[in-house]
């Protein structure tokens, strides 16, 4: 947030535009630390302008067909290729119905022009604290599929973001897909944020509740700390309590006490804690009223 570029130009690099995944992997293997993958490029180019990143090689994966697919298969779940844009995710009916929190997170992100370029996977991989999709993805549960010279692997979304701008990904690896598990029909989810007077979310919450005898609850907070945070204490209140105003208020209180908020240029920790309470209330009311 405190950065701003005095630079108009990008540092020098060689641009690559592989047509298929094998070529992309080969380039990554060859250049490793010196290379960065470019999806929509919105995040990467902004970082490069500020000289936070100066890769000698940029690998544009937008030409790789298999990475462009958004596919929902009933009984299996949702697969989102690395090149699927936020706009495409926002327009998907399947996402809207089965993964509402994700739909709400991407529909309100940035602006239509950025959404038309930025990819969901890229958004996740940026791991910037104020970005909206990670909390929604973590709340909904799933994994990233990673391709690399040591073979493919899946990383649970809850573990993928390790810290600000720090993900579980080696320089020679590529995230090819985001996979969200099948959404139980009794799940309700939502994403709520507060961003008045700000481009970024000062605070946000993604809530997922699977209704039933034993409720499964996830409450994931974004924008309040250096990474998305869950409040296990608040989740417990929601999972165990009878659905009522009192339960929601209690969960909101517990969340605001348990989520470790930071103070930064956008807001103080105090205010964020208050917003955690407010947004938790809002999210839970929406979830239980549907």
């Amino acid at each position, binding site marked *: 947030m405190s950065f701003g570029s005095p630079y108009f130009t990008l540092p020098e690099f060689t641009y690559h535009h592989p047509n298929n995944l094998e070529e992309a992997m080969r380039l990554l293997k060859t250049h490793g630390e010196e290379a960065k993958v470019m999806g929509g490029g919105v995040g990467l180019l902004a970082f490069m302008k500020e000289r936070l990143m100066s890769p000698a090689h940029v690998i*544009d994966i937008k030409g790789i067909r298999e990475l462009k697919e958004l596919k929902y298969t009933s009984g299996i779940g949702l697969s989102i290729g690395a090149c699927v844009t936020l706009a495409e995710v926002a327009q998907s009916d399947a996402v809207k119905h089965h993964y509402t929190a994700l739909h709400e997170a991407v529909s309100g992100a940035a*602006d*239509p022009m*950025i959404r*038309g370029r930025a990819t969901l996977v890229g958004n996740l991989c940026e791991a910037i604290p104020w970005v909206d999709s990670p909390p929604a993805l973590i709340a909904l549960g799933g994994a990233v599929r990673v391709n690399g010279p040591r073979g493919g692997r899946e990383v649970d979304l809850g573990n993928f973001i390790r810290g600000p701008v720090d993900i579980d990904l080696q320089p020679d690896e590529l995230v090819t897909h985001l996979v969200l598990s099948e959404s139980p029909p009794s799940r309700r989810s939502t994403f709520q944020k507060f961003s008045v007077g700000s481009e970024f979310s000062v605070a946000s919450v993604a809530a997922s509740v699977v209704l039933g005898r034993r409720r499964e609850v996830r409450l994931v907070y974004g924008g309040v700390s250096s990474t998305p945070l869950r409040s296990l204490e608040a989740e417990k209140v929601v999972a165990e309590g009878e659905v009522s105003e009192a339960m929601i208020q209690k969960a909101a209180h517990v969340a605001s006490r348990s989520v470790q908020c930071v103070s930064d240029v956008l807001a103080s920790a105090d205010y964020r804690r208050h917003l955690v309470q407010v947004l938790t209330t809002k999210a839970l009311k929406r979830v239980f009223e549907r």
Partner: protein
Amino acid sequence: MRESEVKVNGQIRMREMKDNELLLDLLRDRLEVKSVKAACWRGECGLCTVLLNGELVKSCLVLAVEASGGEVVTVEGIGEDGSGGGGLTAIQRAFMEHGASQCGFCTPAFVLTTHELLRRNPSPTESELTEAVSGLICRCGTYNQIREAVAAVKAHDKRSVSKKLVESTR
């Protein structure tokens, strides 16, 4: 450097492009398309907005090479939309009549964006307009006039807006 071809406002322009060149700079500095402005150079103000292959993008965050083989349209290329009169589109005339431009630095971006909105959706709600321009800043604060200009076009433009992205070159 790579030799590349990009169509800009209906004309094919051949240009050598450096890998690290931004589309913004290709357009402004090498192709002399000066209507495209910039005020933040990091995708926040929207003044660098152009149409790339039919989509509105912020050209300060797009590499020139990403446009190679593609088509860019700026405000110089939106041409007449069939509503009649002087080569200006309905939205341009509405901007003029309603005072939607003060210093003018953001005007090309707003004109292009609202023109494209109306092309896809001749009757946008206020909410849809607000969303469409949410990536743009007007420091002079002409938003109310822009809102009125779009409403005026919506009210009067009964004819279907031409689907062609590029009219005759200027």
